[in-house]
């Protein structure tokens, strides 16, 4: 058990092992571990960001919903008002139209009545003249008594 050339041999093996480890083992594994660390950190960060964005989005969605409800309420109120207006206007229109038609009808009736009255008057005059003639037994000169007859008729 003493020192000899084995020591040199072991040193050479040791140097080769360290060189191999330094070149082919340590760097790639270290790199992989660091990369993974970075990826995990990034993943956690983006997850957090995602949660925050989601919160923001849902807050925004709630806000939008509230606004939309308000608008809907406004629109409905306006629509009801408009509907009332339209109904009111329709009623007025209908009333006016009815009035107009009534007046037209009345005018027509009046016209008709006047015409009928005129005709009747003429017939009455004729009948009066004929009746007078019959009563008197002779021919009444219609022309001579025209003025009289007309006055009579006008009195009807």
């Amino acid at each position, binding site marked *: *058990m003493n020192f*000899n050339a*084995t020591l040199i*041999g072991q*040193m050479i093996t040791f140097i080769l092992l360290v060189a*191999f480890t330094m070149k082919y083992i340590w760097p790639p594994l270290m790199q992989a571990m660091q990369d993974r660390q970075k990826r995990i950190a990034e993943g956690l960060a983006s997850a957090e960001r995602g949660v925050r964005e989601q919160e923001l989005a849902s807050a925004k969605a709630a806000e939008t919903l509230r606004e939309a409800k308000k608008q809907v309420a406004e629109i409905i109120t306006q629509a009801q008002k408009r509907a009332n207006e339209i109904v009111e206007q329709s009623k007025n229109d209908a009333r006016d139209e009815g009035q107009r038609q009534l007046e037209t009808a009345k005018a027509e009736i009046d016209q008709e009545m006047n015409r009928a009255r005129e005709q009747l008057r003429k017939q009455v005059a004729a009948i009066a003249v004929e009746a007078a003639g019959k009563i008197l037994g002779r021919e009444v000169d219609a022309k001579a008594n025209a003025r009289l007859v007309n006055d009579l008729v006008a009195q009807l």
Partner: protein
Amino acid sequence: MTEGGTPSSTEYILHHLTPLHVGHGFWTVHLDTLLVSMALGVFFCWLFWKAARHATSGVPGGLQNFVEILIDFVDTQVKDSFHGRNPLIGPLALTIFVWVWLWNFMDLIPVDLIPSIMGALGVGHFKVVPSTDLNSTFALSLSVIFLVYFYSIKVKGAGGFTKEIFTQPFGIWFCPFNVLLRIVEDVAKPISLGLRLFGNMYAGELIFILIALLPWWIQFTLSWPWAAFHLIIITLQAFIFMVLTIVYLSMAHEDH
């Protein structure tokens, strides 16, 4: 076992503690230490390279998970005591931890298994635990000390390094004392580093060998607890070696 009959206890223990060696004098080479270390080193490189080649920053597989746990563990230790930037120190610490652990783990293989197989193949001696060989532990500790000197001079410059030797820790007026302290410290560092690992593993191996001398029906009462305890020791020793390496190197980087 030795040829002819049952060996005595002394023969049995000595047989287990004799390495497979070739050459004479300094140029003796312990083939068992070298081959087992290389095989474990290749296994370590192969396993970790397999994980590193398919390394993904997505969801890691089982092997990558295991390797990443080790690397993260080592990296934490490095970051705790080393505050500079040095691309060597992490891989160095990882290599030391895993390699030394694998060396020590050979201690948990039944003491007679591999020597018996090797004996059947015609190889007389085979010590399977590289960390029970002083050459292995001192190869590591001397390499570490070499790196300590290298980085001391690189970071502080030759002038700064010399100044540190003469003026630390008690100022220029105590310079002989400072130098003496420095010599003791620098001698103690590699020796304590190498001997601690060697001593623990050698003692552990020896106790396994002694347990193996007991009658076969009683062995499990001692071997199992010792193996369980030793599992902690081998990890602890690998860890201590790694942490001290990091500490020494970080001291080398510190400018006073």
